[in-house]
């Protein structure tokens, strides 16, 4: 087992002071909606995984499917399926 360090960030508190005007979580995006990722609220392991897959602030996303199974997004030409819980933690600026 690897040791856990005391100061290693736990699930990061969502910054209250952050201005969220106009930002909506991926899970609330309509099908075929497009937007730009602005903020990811997740633990270290997941953030690293998402960043490695190209889900990062500033990346353009398109929602291909949004159903009870989860959300399928298109990012940089790659299709990625996310569970609803994770999709509700990725905030996007919707492009109209």
């Amino acid at each position, binding site marked *: 087992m690897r040791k856990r*360090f005391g100061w290693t960030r736990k699930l990061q508190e969502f910054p209250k002071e952050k201005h969220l005007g106009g930002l909506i979580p991926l899970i609330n995006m309509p099908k075929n909606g497009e937007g730009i990722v602005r903020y990811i609220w997740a633990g270290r392991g997941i953030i690293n995984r998402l960043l490695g897959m190209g889900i990062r602030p500033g990346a353009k996303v398109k929602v291909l499917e949004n159903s009870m199974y*989860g959300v399928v997004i298109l990012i940089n030409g790659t299709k990625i399926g996310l569970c609803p819980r994770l999709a509700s933690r990725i905030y996007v600026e919707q492009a109209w």
Partner: protein
Amino acid sequence: MSRKPSRKCPSNSKFCLICPLRFFRKIFPAKPARKIVIGVIGNPNVGKSTLFNELTGAKQYVANWPGKTVEKKEGIRFWKGCELHFVDLPGTYSLSASSLDELVSREFILNEKPDVIIDIVDASNLERHLYLFLELAEMGARIIIALNKIDIAKAKGIQIDVEKLSKLLGTPVISTVATRGEGISRLCDAIVGVALGTIKSNPVLVKYSEDVEEAIRLLEEKIRQKIEKHPSRWIAIRLLLKDRDVINLVSKVAPEIIKEAEKLTYRLEKKYGQPIETIIAEQKYRLIEKIVSETVKYVGHPILDITDLIDTVVLNKYLAIPIFISILWAIFLFTFDAATFLVEGIDFLFEILADFARNNIPNELIASLITDGIIAGLGSVLVFVPNIFFLFLAVSFLEDSGYFARAAFIFDRIMRKVGLHGKSVIPLILGLGCNVPAVMATRGIESEEDRLLTIAVAPLIPCSARFPVFILLAGIFFGKMAAIVMLSMYLLGFALAFLIALIVRKIFYKGRISPFIVEMPPYSRPSLKSISLHMWIRGSHFLKKAGGIIFLMSIIIWFLASMPPGVEFGGPESYAGIIGKSLEFLFKPLGFDWRIVTALIFGFVAKEVVIDSLGVLLGQNLEEVLPQILTPISAYALMVFVLIYTPCIATIATIRSETHSWKWTLFVVAYELILAYLLAFLIVFIGNLIF
């Protein structure tokens, strides 16, 4: 890592006695070739295993990384007087060591210091794939980029200026089409060139924004004095990113640096209002964007994407599950019906072999050991081999085609409710056919916890070997109700699997389920070569690993059944009979007598053996004898007991070889025995109260 001697038979076979090459080499030793160690890395779905197969052919050996459950594949190719020793690193998106795969890859690069790293990059998706490249570059590796799937990129209207890309990245870039074997020889040339120093590889490093660079510089100075083994810039960046393993490493030599890094990270996070990982990644992507914009041109319109068309149907709210079930049905038909003729052939072969041995070995004891012990034991397991190979063929086909990612996505929500992961669904369903491939199919699950949990519950799924036991008992005792009783067994199996998953998750893993992210690769038609190689490697791995344990267990069981000398095979005076009798008191409350207990002991080999043994112990006419020694309630309890108690030898062997842990294997066996007993007891107890 164990290094094989360079002078060896290219077939890589340990047991090759008649190989002329090896014989020849023994007399005339070959000039020891220069050995070059090459790590092959890339994102998942980039065609890494295809390229690896092209590079090494079938000359591969599969093992596990020392002490890890991650599979390690190695292969050799001789090229221009050099021995190229390829090591297949697990497919990862980054090297942040947040998963076991990433940790394994990173430790290999840092500690083994391979001569060359081949980073496989998808030409149609440069942006994402170059992220891994930049991480590799920071680790100070000598990299060659294999620009794979260049044909698909062209078809999509993507033009890449390879020369310019190579100049900007500072490494050789070789365009390849792994599925057709294009570019392999140029890649090998580049490997030899880079390893011998005739071709330069100085991968470009990211220049971060000034405040980040400042922080890196501050840390780097201090690190340089203390740690020389690893590149100091990389350690500084990882420290800023609060990388647990790097912190462990540094805290041993210089704990004060960690405090410093902590402070710097805090300052940066506050300034940017983003977590540090995001800040660093964003700046990496900025460089990537710049490189991509200078080298990639989009010409013409991309052709209509068939993947999207299929996905709208396959992921449809209402159609998704029916489609999944029909595909599953097709796999089942393929594995169990199409392989029937081979299964019967092997069965027939073993019968002939047993007859031959019985008739030709004069010593009765040895004849019995060989026929009743070894041949019967191995035979009972080897008859599954065609099924296993066919199943792997079907699974490899679906895996390569890209459907599995969709299936996992659809089922994630349901599986999550019972404490499992979306990717557990495929192993569990395969378990209906045979638990062995079910346990092996858990390889697709990335998270170690989810994987162990799936392995633990997979043997509860009633496999096809339990079917004959159920059908016999249900037919004798329940008459018209037989179908319902049978169905109840299947439902009970799945219900228990989910229940145990939920409980184990609560006890061991505190209710954490890793969030579900899956890349859905474009659908593609798998090449026959690739899937058959896949099937062969996995299937032969099973044979080698499980074979030894099965062999041993068969001898033990034979010993119990036929010793002391002179007793009837499996009779009351044999050790098995004695054990059965001495355990009878335990099973009295369930209404089982010693003969049933003995049959259950034999059931360890394979569940359908329970019926055979009962036949031997009770005389052939089971329909008449069984109702005399069992009540219907006890019969139902027996069915439940057979459903749950212990996986068969082959499954136990597979669990051991997949988990690399006797502890976990014993845990699975133990909990199943206890659960089986408790449940059977409960059924008898409640049954007797009601009826």
